[in-house]
């Protein structure tokens, strides 16, 4: 009977929604269609516009779209249910996107997810709280791995979450909303002088870490004090663990770098380095802020606490072994200003190509450099270009694949946010080389800042004549557009990406034919990754030889990695090929955090594998990584310590790929699901003898039989952990989790170190700890949900896991 009631309930909800939609004003749909167009390839942008307006996709709106455009009901439903971005039910006022990328996952994302749901009293399959304020969703990766665990509420990012601050975060967000509506329109622009410069990074991860607030505080302080300095946003400085980071170049040109700056430090920082222009301002400032005493030494104290010099040995080391090509001019230029890019040899390479080199020369140069695709597979870039250039065709397309979906990778986001012009320059050069006159930069929708900066950069390029019908009077033209993804990891696969641009479900197809022969709308198409394009201008400017001198025999140049996980210093790094994993972890990353033991490095995300600490001498090299069971991948590098369970890590990746499978072929659609179920049983202590062998056999089947790269590589995390950590799998069958990670196989207990502070009892959401002030506390194992809250709050480290 229950099922019947459920059905009735569902029906009621549908009727209710139908009622709502009848009342909907659909004129906006007409407006969108009028602005966007009526072609069937516009399905995704139209759906995105509808969702932005109505906050979900009302059925009546979709039916209206079908009336107005060439889009069919089949297509609109097929597409809108394929991409995770689209919602078919109304959602709460604010959307919480909790990142479950690798870095966040190993730092307890699921515990946070449960804690938020608990706090908002969501039950069962609810994703929205009862008063419709918040809707929660897990997202693949927000690309802020160094802030893990992290979540985004609407546009605001919160990092370093712990279960006990969840209520504060939600409160903070709601207060911020209130303030925002009051402040709107009240702000004036900052002081414009060229006397000094205050530089602050403003990429989304830095913004998440508080850079936005610091930026606003600095702007406000500049206005208040009228100090002779200008505030400037710069590209990512790649030291995520130090953000918010502020560099102050004083009137004498001396640079001072401050790390982990707080908004309340802004005024003090400015007053330290710049004298306000007139005493009146100073006096006014003094009056308005009673706690300040003008220009006395007392104010310096809180500031100096955060100050670090660039010569600080740790930081120098962090930067020292790196080589900046894709990230050239890091921290030096304003990413959105084309003038600054031009001042730093921007578009020099393009000019050289268009005016001095034939397309063949360009291709030869790239071929000679030994550059290989940075998207994962490592196909020789020059060879790909020459294939596309040789195919005859009136129309050729060029595509920049920025659908960076690996949980634990955010290089492309950073490159697009910080160096949009460099990426675009690389694309134009490639387009010239292969003879493509139309193209798309495909950026995942989870990266709104990247989308916005690329849009801005495209506009500027058109204005300056770097894009258009006749670039630099060379006769060569390129029409380059941006296309936003809609939340589908599989669209990183190039044939799926093409389907997505064509407005279809992002389903891969069998290759050959390769896009070089038959790509977008059946035309020859060049698809390269963001990082690949970003290396091209440097190669042209500095010569193939210089590039090929960097790296190993098979792998030339540099590779950008997103270093995250259990290292002391996470962040974005660009290293020459050939450096060892150990150098990266220990020298650049500063070793393992919290004094734990280095266990493994996960490289290549869900398609990659785990390299054990014992093989840390493995160099960063396509072949060497493949030999040990990992792949170069797109550059996610997550460091794991002895508290990370390898079975759980494998399960995590399978959960990801399984969820992201397009569902086309049997091996991937069903096979990855069955593998996931098997791994879940292992983690739950329900594994049986023979399960490991069956899992391994199925993994090989899925690897051999799947249609596209996603399925073929999905078993890698399982196979590589089976290879190096098989005994850990065996332990799970015996009911043990050696890393103390799998909830069903562990127990929390309190040691004699307990000081009786009661914090654990207060924080326990399951009432499993009885409050006993000044006495040793105990955990009721029956009630304990292994949420880890007690261990996190314990000031004396008395909560242990066995």
């Amino acid at each position, binding site marked *: 009977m229950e099922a019947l009631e459920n059905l009735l309930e569902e029906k009621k909800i549908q009727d209710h929604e139908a009622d709502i939609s009848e009342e909907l004003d659909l004129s906006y749909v007409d407006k969108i269609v009028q602005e966007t167009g009526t072609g069937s390839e516009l399905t995704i942008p139209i759906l995105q516009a509808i969702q932005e307006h109505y906050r979900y996709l009302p059925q009546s709106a979709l039916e209206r779209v079908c009336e107005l455009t060439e889009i069919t009901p089949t297509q609109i*439903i097929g597409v809108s249910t394929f991409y995770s971005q689209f919602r078919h039910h109304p959602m709460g006022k604010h959307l919480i996107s909790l990142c479950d990328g690798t870095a966040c996952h190993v730092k307890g994302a699921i515990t946070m997810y449960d804690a938020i749901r608990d706090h908002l009293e969501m039950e069962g399959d609810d994703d929205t709280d009862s008063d419709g304020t918040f809707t929660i969703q897990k997202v693949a990766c927000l690309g802020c791995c160094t802030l893990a665990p992290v979540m985004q509420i609407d546009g605001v990012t919160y990092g370093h979450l712990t279960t006990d601050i969840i209520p504060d975060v939600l409160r903070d967000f709601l207060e911020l909303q209130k303030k925002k509506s009051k402040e709107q329109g009240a702000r004036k622009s900052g002081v414009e002088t060229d006397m000094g410069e205050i530089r602050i990074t403003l990429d989304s991860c830095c913004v998440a870490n508080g850079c936005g607030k610091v930026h606003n505080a600095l702007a406000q302080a500049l206005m208040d004090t009228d100090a002779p300095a200008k505030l400037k946003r710069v590209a990512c400085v790649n030291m995520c663990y130090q953000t918010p980071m502020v560099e102050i170049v004083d009137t004498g040109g001396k640079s001072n770098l401050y790390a982990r700056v707080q908004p309340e430090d802004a005024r003090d920082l400015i007053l330290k380095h710049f004298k306000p222009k007139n005493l009146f301002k100073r006096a006014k400032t003094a009056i308005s802020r009673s706690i300040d005493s003008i220009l006395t030494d007392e104010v310096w104290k809180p500031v100096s606490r955060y100050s670090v010099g660039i010569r600080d040995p740790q930081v120098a080391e962090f930067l020292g072994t790196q080589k900046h090509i894709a990230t050239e001019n890091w921290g030096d230029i304003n990413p959105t200003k084309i003038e600054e890019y031009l001042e730093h040899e921007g578009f020099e390479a393009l000019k050289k190509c268009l005016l001095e080199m034939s397309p063949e020369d360009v291709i030869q140069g790239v071929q000679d450099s030994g550059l290989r695709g940075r998207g994962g597979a490592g196909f020789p870039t020059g060879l790909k270009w020459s294939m596309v250039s040789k195919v005859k065709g009136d129309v050729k397309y060029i595509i920049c694949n920025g659908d960076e979906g690996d949980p634990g990778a955010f290089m492309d986001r950073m490159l697009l946010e910080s160096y949009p012009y460099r990426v675009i320059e690389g694309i134009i050069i490639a387009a010239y080389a292969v003879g493509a006159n139309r193209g798309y930069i495909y950026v995942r929708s989870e990266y709104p800042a990247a989308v916005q900066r690329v849009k801005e950069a495209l506009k500027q390029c058109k204005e300056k004549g770097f894009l258009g019908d006749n670039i630099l009077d060379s006769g060569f033209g390129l029409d380059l557009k941006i296309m936003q993804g809609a939340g589908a990891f599989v669209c990183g696969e190039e044939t799926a990406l093409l389907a997505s641009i064509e407005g279809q479900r992002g389903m891969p197809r*069998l290759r050959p034919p390769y896009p070089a022969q038959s790509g977008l709308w059946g035309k020859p198409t060049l698809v390269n990754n963001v990082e690949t394009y970003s290396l091209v201008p440097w190669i042209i400017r500095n010569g193939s030889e210089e590039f090929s001198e960097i790296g190993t025999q098979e792998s030339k140049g540099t590779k950008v990695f997103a270093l995250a996980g259990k290292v002391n210093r996470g962040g974005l790094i660009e290293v020459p090929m050939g450096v060892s994993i150990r150098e990266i972890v220990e020298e650049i990353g500063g070793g393992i955090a919290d004094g734990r033991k280095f266990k493994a490095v996960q490289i290549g995300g869900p398609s990659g594998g785990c390299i054990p600490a014992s093989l840390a001498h493995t160099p960063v090299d396509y072949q060497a990584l493949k030999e040990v069971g990992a792949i170069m991948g797109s550059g996610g590098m997550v460091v794991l310590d002895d508290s990370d369970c390898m079975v759980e890590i494998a399960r995590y990746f399978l959960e990801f790929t399984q969820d992201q*499978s397009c*569902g086309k*072929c049997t*091996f991937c659609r069903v096979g990855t699901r069955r593998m996931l*179920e098997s791994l879940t049983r292992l983690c739950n202590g329900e594994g049986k003898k023979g399960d490991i062998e069956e899992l391994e056999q199925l993994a090989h089947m899925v690897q051999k*039989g799947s*249609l596209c790269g996603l399925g073929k590589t999905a078993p890698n995390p399982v196979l590589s952990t089976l290879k190096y950590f098989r005994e850990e799998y065996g332990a799970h069958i015996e009911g043990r989790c050696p890393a103390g990670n799998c909830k069903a196989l562990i127990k929390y207990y309190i040691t004699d170190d307990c000081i009786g502070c009661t914090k654990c009892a207060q924080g326990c959401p399951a009432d499993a700890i009885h409050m006993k002030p000044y006495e040793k506390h105990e955990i009721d194992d029956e009630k304990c949900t292994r949420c880890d809250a007690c261990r996190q709050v314990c000031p004396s480290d008395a909560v242990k896991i066995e």
Partner: protein
Amino acid sequence: MVKLTIDGQRVEVDSGTTILDAAHKIGIGIPALCYRAGCDPSTSCMVCVVNVSGKLLPSCATLVQEDMVVESETAEVHEARQAALELLLSDHIGDCIAPCHRSCPADMNIPLMIRQISSGKIRDAIVPVKNDIALPAVLGRICPAPCEKACRRGSYDEGVAICLLKRFAADVDLVSETPYIPECKPDTGKTVAIIGAGPAGLSAAYYLAQYGYKCVIFDEHEKPGGMLRYGVPEDKLPHKVLDMEIEIIRELGAEMVMNKKIDEEALENLRKEYDAVLISTGGNKEGIASLFKVSRSTLQTEEKDVFIAGNAVGRNSKMAVRSVSDGKLAAKSIAQYLSGSMVTGAEKPFTTNIGKLNEGEIHSFMKGVSDSPRYKPTEIADAQRHGGKQSSLFSPPLRASYFDIFPDKQTGFSPQEAVAESNRCLHCDCRKADNCKLRDYSNIYDASSRKYKGDGKTFDQYFHPADTQDSSVEPYVIYEPGKCIKCGLCVQITTKAREPLGLTFVGRGFDVKIGVPFNRRIDEGLRKVAEECVEACPTGALAFK
């Protein structure tokens, strides 16, 4: 033109041809569920994989290349095909054959009989019955009916009264002017001696006659029937019924020699005189059957011409249906032996089964099914039972003597009751059980439906009109998502036909489903090409109701 090698054979085809088409051209069959001529390759099922230079590739989409070497029958390829099928099966919810059918010792197609009754084709109902049971009127009175205990309807209220329906179908046939006589193959000229005229012996004679063998049944009693006559009280099984069914076996050509006991010596003589001998003397431990060792799967003994059936194999079953079933199997084995083929025993075709239902699932099965409680035969005046227009259910009309022939007439269904009871059947067997590529290939590649354990789907079915039991309504499409393998052929067909709504993929990955846009009904999505979609669907996901 492109030249390539498939399984060692050279073939020349146009460039642009797929490996699958090239293989078919030279008579190499490659299995494929999602392939359909005229549609784009779906590369979905992956059962069509072949080995090309060490890689497994879907042959339905891979184009031939000069000097390509394709292997389609290696152990690796077979293993991959089996794995693909097993993965699909792990996500496939349906009963190829219904639980009643599966639990019937005689393997009778019960749902088909019930549907014939339900749709008023009452005379036709006897065909599936007699296909597997030689004495249905007899069994309809005494069978303990394991089928009814297995019936899915039991998880809603009570199982369908299968046994009484079978009795009804058989009784109607017996009293008709022309009782059903199966078609017999021409006489082979070979002869079989059957020792014992009990349920096994009679059943064997019934089927052997159809295969074209002359049978002589020897029995020590005065009349044939064995335990059916001498072991079952007559109030349960009137001799009249038994005699009428035996009479049909006689009509088929079986000869009966009564009052004749066969001892060891007589047996040896029979072996010389007849091409084969079947011992079906019941469960007597000292009988002649104890001289032989019998294979329980083929019922053949180590003496190739001697077969044993029924309780004589060394058991003591009270279920006559098992003996009847044995007789049928023995007939098949004897026919195989006499025609010089391999004696294979009973075929066990591949089937999937849902097993125990999850909570609430039964309600999906109940869609469009009568929810009346199980009918019981009532004592209604004879005139009422066959008077008025109800008798038009019968063609040719029943003889007026219908209810007088059987002394136990009050314990059987009236036609109205039979039809009403038959409407309680859930039709839980697959509508395309005999036309399912998934089942066919699972048979060929020896796939197991239980290899991969996983979270099962929930059974559901959609059709419109959902509430009619009127069989005169045009056949309409029924959609069972649990059987869908997501090949997308129906999506392609409806898109090509420019169906106003059509079918589409809904969702992504493991949870992807086929559905009609905007949650509309299945018939609204299939206005133009329902027939083509049903025909193209490789499983029972789309079928006609």
